[in-house]
């Protein structure tokens, strides 16, 4: 591991974050862009759920996580508290793994 990697990655990562934050800092966005920006978290977080649940190293995979997150989806649907959903998702995944699926 080189210091070059640590420093360049830090600069790159912060530049992404700061650009997005500062770009629209002083003004209201045009209405269409503002609406689009408001929908970004829904689109990306849903994609992240797919990524974290059914992919592994760039390939689609079904394993214990799919069962755990499936249980979490049911609990979230029933409007269970966020902490309950998180703990249930982790516990079901751990249990399925423990029995060797």
């Amino acid at each position: 591991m080189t210091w070059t990697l640590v420093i360049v990655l830090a600069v790159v990562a912060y530049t992404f974050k700061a650009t997005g934050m500062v770009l629209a800092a002083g003004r209201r966005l045009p209405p269409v862009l503002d609406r689009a920006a408001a929908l970004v978290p829904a689109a990306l977080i849903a994609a992240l759920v797919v990524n974290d649940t059914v992919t592994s190293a760039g390939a689609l995979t079904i394993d214990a996580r799919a069962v755990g997150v499936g249980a979490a989806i049911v609990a979230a649907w029933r409007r269970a508290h966020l902490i309950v959903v998180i703990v249930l998702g982790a516990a079901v995944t751990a249990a399925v793994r423990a029995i060797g699926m």
Partner: protein
Amino acid sequence: MNDQRSVVSAGLVLAAAVGVFGIAFGAGAVSAGASVWQTCVMSLAVFTGASQFSAISVIAAGGGTVAALGGATLLAARNGVYALAMSRVLPRGRLATRLIAAQVTIDESTAMASAARDDADARRAFWVTGIGVYVFWNIGTLMGAVAGSAVDPAVFGLDAAFPSGFVAMLAPLMDQPAHRAAAIGGAVICLVATPVLPVGLPILCAAAAVMLGVRR
């Protein structure tokens, strides 16, 4: 998600789970050949878990700096898109606040903020989660780097804790057709793009799904 204590406690639960991954990262980075200093500076300055894990896995597999940067950059890019969205809920014109907010703009803080009912709740959720995750990630990193890791987060199903939490944060948004369209579109894009695009890009491409919601 409406009362304050609920936001704080949920943010801290996520932060604690991140801390366990911090331990795994710290231990993994040192065993990939990084010094304790390099490992801790990386977590303090980069603060993008997926990028950092990607970088050390390339190094551990014998890859070079350029290869490690390539994959890590793709995974860091989505924070820029999150920042555009979070920019809307932070007060306008305060540059210093925004430059600090930028560093804690990550999956967890964005998801928690987007589940909030109004801008004031969103700001609170963003800062509590962002700072909580920052603190636990860095403490975990130091512990793992110094002491090594005896815990595998997967044994406790902690890798499923994040998508589970994100599902719960998305749930209140699903009543709104525009958000629902964006979320379903984003999920489908990620599913279709994963086998064909490099890791990190499918999530970035999912941003295109906002087009499905803009006109609703």
